């Protein structure tokens, strides 16, 4: 009788099979290698954290999406839904305060997504945090680094929609409303329900032309040139935010990455900790951003650490998806390097000696020497996509005068 075992895995999880698993690891390594060129150092944090760490001000919109557990002491634990919060914890508790810190990471995060959305609940992120640096210089470094690492991964067709929390905040402040109403407006903008926003503002008694103006600012899509135009009679907060954006874009022009930027004031991330510029990265064929980030100057205060910071995270799984839909294959040279060799034969000594020599040279070698026939070896090589080298015992080869290596 065979034992009944479960063969399936929890919803939203996935196995990475030979081929795809190495493609994913390669992409992560490639991204990290490129980011390290900018002097970023890798950091790792545990998958499990105390729930409180992931809920610093108690109202992250994604709170319902966090996987929670109770440990044996009755503490609430959670699987990290993102990496910025754990890194903020490390910065405030374990690293010396010699700012700025340039940190990067690549790892799995977990979010309890609704099944119907077709999203995975476990996914990999590669990201960076630039901690202890203020101003457009740091923000433009983050944006340029995001563009550059995506390009290094082979992706070129993408757009970054850039906004600024200061602009939205300024607009909302001009309404002089209560917190609950502002929250409702924020949710509507986050969901991009502009019809709902229109109705909500109208029903709250705001004049029609003002509503039109407000929704207009949020829905208009601006090029970076539009920002240069004169914007008159702006409240102070908005003017400061605009100046900040202009400076970020001016610096991006120096990097020559300005063409990837599209200014969109309705850009918002679900995390509420952002305080300055925010951005999301889009690519054709994938209905979701493949990455995003922004400035979060107040987050570290939760750990008593008054320190500005900015950063981004890229969704590795989504980048893989867009790379495959863009049909970006490997270069021939890389393929050659990855070619696998099958050394087979009936004499263990010959096969092992040869394999050891080849591996030292950096070649990929599979060995088979347990009663395998030449025909079987040919079949196996075909299945594994390897090049067969049939090995005959050295002495026998000499005697027979022929050494076969096809």
């Amino acid at each position, binding site marked *: 009788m065979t034992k009944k075992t479960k063969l399936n895995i929890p919803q939203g999880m996935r196995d990475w099979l030979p081929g795809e698993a190495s493609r994913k690891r390669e992409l992560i390594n490639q991204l990290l290698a490129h980011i390290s060129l900018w002097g970023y150092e890798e950091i790792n944090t545990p998958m499990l954290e105390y729930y409180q760490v992931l809920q610093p001000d108690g109202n992250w919109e994604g709170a319902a999406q966090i996987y929670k557990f109770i440990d044996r002491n009755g503490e609430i634990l959670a699987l990290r839904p993102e990496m910025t919060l754990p890194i903020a914890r490390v910065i405030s508790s374990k690293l010396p305060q010699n700012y700025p810190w340039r940190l990067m990471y690549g790892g799995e995060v977990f979010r309890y997504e609704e099944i119907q959305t077709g999203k995975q609940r476990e996914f990999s992120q590669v990201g960076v945090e630039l901690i202890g640096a203020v101003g457009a210089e740091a923000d433009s470094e983050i944006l340029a680094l995001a563009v550059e690492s995506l390009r290094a991964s082979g992706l070129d067709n993408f757009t970054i*929609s850039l906004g600024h929390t200061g602009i939205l905040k300024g607009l909302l402040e001009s309404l002089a409303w209560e917190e609950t109403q502002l929250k409702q407006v924020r949710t509507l903008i986050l969901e991009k329900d502009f019809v709902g926003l229109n109705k909500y503002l109208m029903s709250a008694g705001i004049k029609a032309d003002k509503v039109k103006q407000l929704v207009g600012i949020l829905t208009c*899509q601006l090029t970076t040139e539009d920002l240069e135009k004169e914007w008159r009679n702006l409240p102070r907060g908005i003017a400061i935010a605009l100046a900040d954006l202009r400076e970020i874009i001016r610096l991006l022009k120096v990097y020559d990455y300005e063409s990837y930027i599209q200014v969109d004031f309705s850009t918002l991330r679900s995390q509420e900790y952002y305080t300055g510029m925010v951005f999301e990265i889009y690519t054709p064929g994938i*209905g979701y951003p493949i990455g995003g980030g922004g400035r979060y100057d107040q987050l570290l205060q939760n750990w008593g650490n008054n320190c500005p910071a900015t950063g981004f995270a890229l969704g590795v799984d989504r980048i893989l998806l867009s790379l495959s839909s863009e049909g970006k294959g490997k270069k021939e040279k890389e393929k050659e390097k990855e070619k696998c060799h099958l050394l087979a034969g009936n004499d263990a000594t010959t096969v092992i000696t040869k394999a050891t020599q080849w591996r030292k040279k950096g070649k990929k070698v599979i060995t088979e020497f347990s009663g395998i026939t030449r025909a079987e070896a040919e079949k196996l090589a075909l299945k594994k996509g390897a090049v067969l080298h049939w090995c005959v015992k050295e002495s026998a080869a000499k005697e027979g005068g022929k050494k076969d290596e096809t």
Partner: protein
Amino acid sequence: MKPKLTIALPKGKLFAPAKNVLEHCGLGCAQLSDQARTLIFEDECKEVRYIICRPTDLPTYVEHGAADLGIVGKDSIVEAGKNLYELVDLKFGYCRFAIAVPQDRLTPEGEFMWQPGFRIATKFPAVAREYIQKKGLQGEIIKLHGNIELAPRVGLAEAIVDIVSTGKTLKENALVPIEYIGEATARLIVNRASYRLKAKEINTLVTAIKDFLEEKGGENFDSFV
């Protein structure tokens, strides 16, 4: 050549007015039909591709980027709970979500008492669940795919949540609406990535639609169609 835009249109009663709007905005969609077996059409210059799908599935097509834009009732958007951009209220296809119960279940004063363990039959379980949670009621939701008005008559449920436009169907089945929980009209929805990547094409269309709506004065759009 790949079409510049893919637009999803709903089968059924919103199809004709949706097609009408697009035609007035200068899109060549004359040959479109929701009766044909073909579900994909292309305009003459191959610039726009149309897909025809069920209203309940339409938000999914747009959310995942299989279509850049779509026209669908707010009722379908609410129920699907998808992550997409809702840009324009097209003002046609007006209807309301109603809670309706059999006439004979009302008290002589015309009130309805929720019995413990009641059942609500509906095509919109998400909407119904939100309603009973808001009211602090405890009940069961039974998902059906059509002809909801049948359920209370045969004892499958005590109440229904459905969309009502004229109220005729309810009346014919001896049901009375006891509460309305929101209105719906057709909306123009846009995929999050397309909104950014095809900004120019989408903005042109959105402006054309808005101009057209303003011209029509919006309010009596249904009668115009």
